[in-house]
């Protein structure tokens, strides 16, 4: 069951990524905090994985599914919520955004689907 935490963790990791490139604006306190959290999350995450592996408790198939779900989930969140709904920032400026947005969100969906497939496979593996 350790894999569940991996999922949560990787989602956390990708979530912070969103803030990383979302705020090039200057002078926001929260940005500094989130920036630090994101960096530390990546480092600590990597070491947690090593720790689990050393304890032979790492459920690799769960971890991979979490990895893809996290990446896809936040790519998608970023693409839909912050780019389009909140309009915090755009991928590029002064060009037609349609194809950029399309590519962005489709790649997010592809990552999500890989994640869902791995999740189902992990469940099957645990049952079998």
């Amino acid at each position, binding site marked *: 069951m*350790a894999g569940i*935490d991996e999922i949560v963790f990787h989602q956390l990791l990708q979530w912070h990524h969103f803030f990383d490139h979302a705020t090039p604006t200057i*002078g*926001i306190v929260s940005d500094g905090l989130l*920036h630090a959290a994101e960096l530390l999350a990546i480092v600590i995450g990597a070491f947690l994985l090593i720790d689990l592996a050393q304890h032979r408790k790492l459920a690799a198939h769960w971890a991979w599914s979490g990895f893809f779900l996290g990446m896809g989930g936040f790519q998608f969140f970023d693409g839909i919520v912050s780019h389009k709904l909140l309009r915090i920032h755009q991928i590029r400026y002064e060009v037609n955004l349609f194809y950029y947005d399309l590519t962005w969100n489709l790649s997010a969906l592809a990552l999500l689907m890989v994640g869902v497939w791995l999740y189902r496979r992990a469940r099957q593996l645990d049952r079998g």
Partner: protein
Amino acid sequence: MTEHAHAEAGALLPWLPLTLVVLITVCYLLAAGWQRQLGNGWSPWRSAFFILGSLLLAKALAPPVMAWAHHDLYGHMALHLVMGMLAPLAWVLAAPVTLLLRTLPQAASRRVASLLKSLPVRVVSHPLSALTLNIGGMYLLYLTPLYAVSLHNALVHYWVHLHFLLAGYLFCWAILAGPDPSPHRLSLRFRLGVLFLSMATHALLGKLMYGYHWPRGTGHSVEEIQAAAQLMYYGGDLAEVLLAVALLVMWLRTPHSRREPLWPKLIERRAP
């Protein structure tokens, strides 16, 4: 004649910090070699870290680099990164205090050990006070006229650089709580938390300098200040990530049974 001697001393003064670094390094290596001869052993990794730290410091303290750092804020920031963050980390990893304690005669060694347990050392070596000294010192330097003063006053200038080095060393030691024995027993999570605060406040300072063009009154152009602030932001990240990696590598090197849980939920599930 005296004027001539004065000028000579003036020309030699910039080399003083570099000479001190070389001397300290030679002492460290002699002591390490002696420990090995005695059969006590001394990890070559530690010596390598010390040499690395010394090389970084020597590069930063070389008079041409110092001169560059003096008139160019970007150079100053590069120097600050090396002197205040990278070199101290390498030196802390070299465990110089342990080596000193082993090398000194017993009586002197005991005195040093009790000095390390004394209240002042305990106070400044706490992660939170080390953080305040380190990052607080930076806020004070860059967001007040202190930086402008340090450009003209040699004494303040030297003091600022010594402060970088000492505060950086103290901070790395406080966060790692090793390999030299720390007078505090603080949890890994607490120390990671302080490191998090340091990263956040450091990044914030970089952005404040970038956005509001600090330090002021120095004649540096906006572009120069922004380049320096960016270097501070990304270079600071690099140094602090390296510190986090060092801390977690040390954590992984402790045997499973004594390893402190980082993520309590995982441990609960791990228990049969």
